[in-house]
């Protein structure tokens, strides 16, 4: 067990994957000598050479489309998209090629491609550098979509994603890159499977579902609510496709109340999917309508407005009050239980 930042854990996970299988190749802009703009691939080119860690031209469709050809040839490419908002030029290759080639070829061609995307806000960046495009990909059949929230998961999940025979969109919460935590670098089969959610904070009154950057915030919510006598159960979704509904369902049958939070815009987002699916499965157990705390249906705003945009402790607590039937910003004092 050692202390690592999430960035360090990802770097070590990538190193182990490169060392384990010589068909693993990393591809992306600036990932070689520079080590990536976030240094996630730091020193990997020096260690494995320019054929394993490939500095590519600046073209996202080129990166993904070339990875498709490499995958057909038997390679396991790991593509880095420099920032969330830059993924759109590669969107067609991801949703029309990467996602569908296994289906299109009736299982004859595999697409073991991992696409790493530093995502989300909170670092005061300029336009196109703080977005949360995960729902586009969770909506697309044939893609697995995951997001890590802590150094241990970052370490194990990146290796699992690379080892998977399916394509994986791997969303890394960039504002948590420098968060430290314990990492068991030898964790093997005992690590949680890639598609499994995890209860990170047990509780009995309200279930809060989060993933990526907001898991940390949800844990702060649980601590604050505990001071108020409310036991919040926090679930780190970890996987957005598939969603581990069994874990969420078990929690909601216990608490009867559900809050979902993410940074992405609300409409058509993961929160909508989870609220609908859990309502179908747990309608008789729900004491209140599920609540969503999300980014707004606006473009990601300029940095000085991002605090207003991003779900934070107080906005999530307000939703916890809502599902508990306590006074909250929408009902005011009249609804006091």
């Amino acid at each position, binding site marked *: 067990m050692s202390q690592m930042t999430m960035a360090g854990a990802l770097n070590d996970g990538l190193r182990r994957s490169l060392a384990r299988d010589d068909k693993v190749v990393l591809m992306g802009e600036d990932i070689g000598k520079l080590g990536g703009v976030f240094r996630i691939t730091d020193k990997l080119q020096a260690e494995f050479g320019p054929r394993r860690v490939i500095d590519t031209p600046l073209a996202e469709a080129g990166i993904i489309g070339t990875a498709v050809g490499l995958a057909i040839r038997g390679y396991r490419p790991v593509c880095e998209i420099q920032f969330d908002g830059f993924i759109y030029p590669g969107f067609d290759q991801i949703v029309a090629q990467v996602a569908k080639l296994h289906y299109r070829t009736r299982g004859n061609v595999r697409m073991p491609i991992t696409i790493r995307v530093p995502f989300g806000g909170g670092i005061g960046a300029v336009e196109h550098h703080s977005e949360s495009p995960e729902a586009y990909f969770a909506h697309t059949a044939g893609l697995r979509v995951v997001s890590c929230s802590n150094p241990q998961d970052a370490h194990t999940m990146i290796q699992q994603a690379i080892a998977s025979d399916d394509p994986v969109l791997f969303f890394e919460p960039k504002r948590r890159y420098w968060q430290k935590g314990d990492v068991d670098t030898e964790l093997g089969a005992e690590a949680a499977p890639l598609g499994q959610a995890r209860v990170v904070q047990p509780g009995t009154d309200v279930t809060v579902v989060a993933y990526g950057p907001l898991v940390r915030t949800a844990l702060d919510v649980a601590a604050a609510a505990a001071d108020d006598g409310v036991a919040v159960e926090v679930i780190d979704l970890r996987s957005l496709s*598939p969603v581990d509904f069994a874990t969420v369902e078990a929690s909601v049958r216990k608490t009867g109340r559900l809050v979902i939070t993410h940074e992405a815009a609300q409409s058509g987002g993961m929160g909508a999917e989870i609220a609908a699916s859990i309502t179908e499965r747990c309608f008789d157990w729900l004491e209140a309508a599920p609540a969503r705390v999300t980014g707004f249906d606006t473009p990601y705003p300029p940095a000085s407005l991002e605090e207003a945009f991003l779900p934070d402790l107080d906005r999530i607590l307000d939703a916890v009050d809502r599902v508990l039937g306590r006074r909250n910003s929408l009902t005011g004092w009249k609804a006091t239980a």
Partner: protein
Amino acid sequence: MHKAHDEYGVHLGSLEDVVQLVRSDGTRVNNPGFDPWVDDVSTEQLIGLYEDMVVVRRIDTEATALQRQGEIGLWPPLLGQEAAQIGSARALRRDDFVFSSYRENGVAYCRGIDFTDLMRVWRGSAASGWNPYEVGMATPAVIIGAQTLHATGYALGCKHDGVDSATIAYFGDGATSQGDVNEALVFAASFSAPVVFFCQNNQWAISEPVGLQSQRHISDRAPGFGIPSMRIDGNDVLAVMAATRIALDRARSGGGPTFIEAVTYRMGPHTTSDDPTRYRPAGELDEWRAKDPIARIASLLDARGAFTEELRSRVDEKADAVASELRAACLSIPKPDPLTVFDHVFAEPHSGLERQKSQYAAYLASFGDNDADGTADSDADSDTDGSES
């Protein structure tokens, strides 16, 4: 220059400035740079190329008829492009890998693809027909130009594996406007990937003439990417074969990518869904009929005293036999079981999809006396097809 489309200025599809080894009238033209690459092609092999071209034209006619009869949903004819496809595909080795669009049915024939597999997509029974690894040809890309990047990546893999296999990417003139094709040229040049970019400039991207896509010869673009290019007569099977062999040799010997613009003509519609009489200038088709790739090789063989009535009828008989095989194969394709819609979405189990599958299976099973495999369900569909009641 030939001005067929005033609104776009110069029409770039003429056969000026092209490498030609056989003239439209079938006479052989000497070209010191290209001749050595086809010196080994004997009269016997020329007859083989003639036969291939007649057969794929017959396949094309039969498939078009199947579409008109409602047996397949769509067909993209290659009529007029036989030399471009046969000449290039017959230059390939078994261990080379083909990445194509949807029109390269002549190339698919050369790769030995089974007729049932060839027709599955058009019959609507599967997203693709064949196993790419068995025939060395990826499943056709429908999104224009996407396959050029796949070819580049696969070629890069060949290079890294230390083998001398090459890839060939087929695409049309319209595809050269796409970002993917331009990115493929950048990546291929940057990494010196052993890939041949084979552009069949058939003059039309559905209704848009090549002049709208390109203000210069398409082959002029490649040198700007650092990729050498050739502009050849795509209706001349020998010129196509020579150019492809040159490009493959460069790829195999570490020379990197090459771009070939094969100037040809799509004599039919883009697909069976469009009507070229709405967009094609009068007279253009007749002009290109005079450059027909099959007539040309027949004339060349005739000049060598090798084109006999016996040869013509033997090849026509073979083409007819292939056409009837194709028809039988097409009609034999069964309607798939409804539950197979869930197959092969993922390589590993996916809990969300498994739930949908089991719920749909339960739904199908709920039709009392019917089979759970849904065959009765599809019967019911066909019973009510077209009925308002």
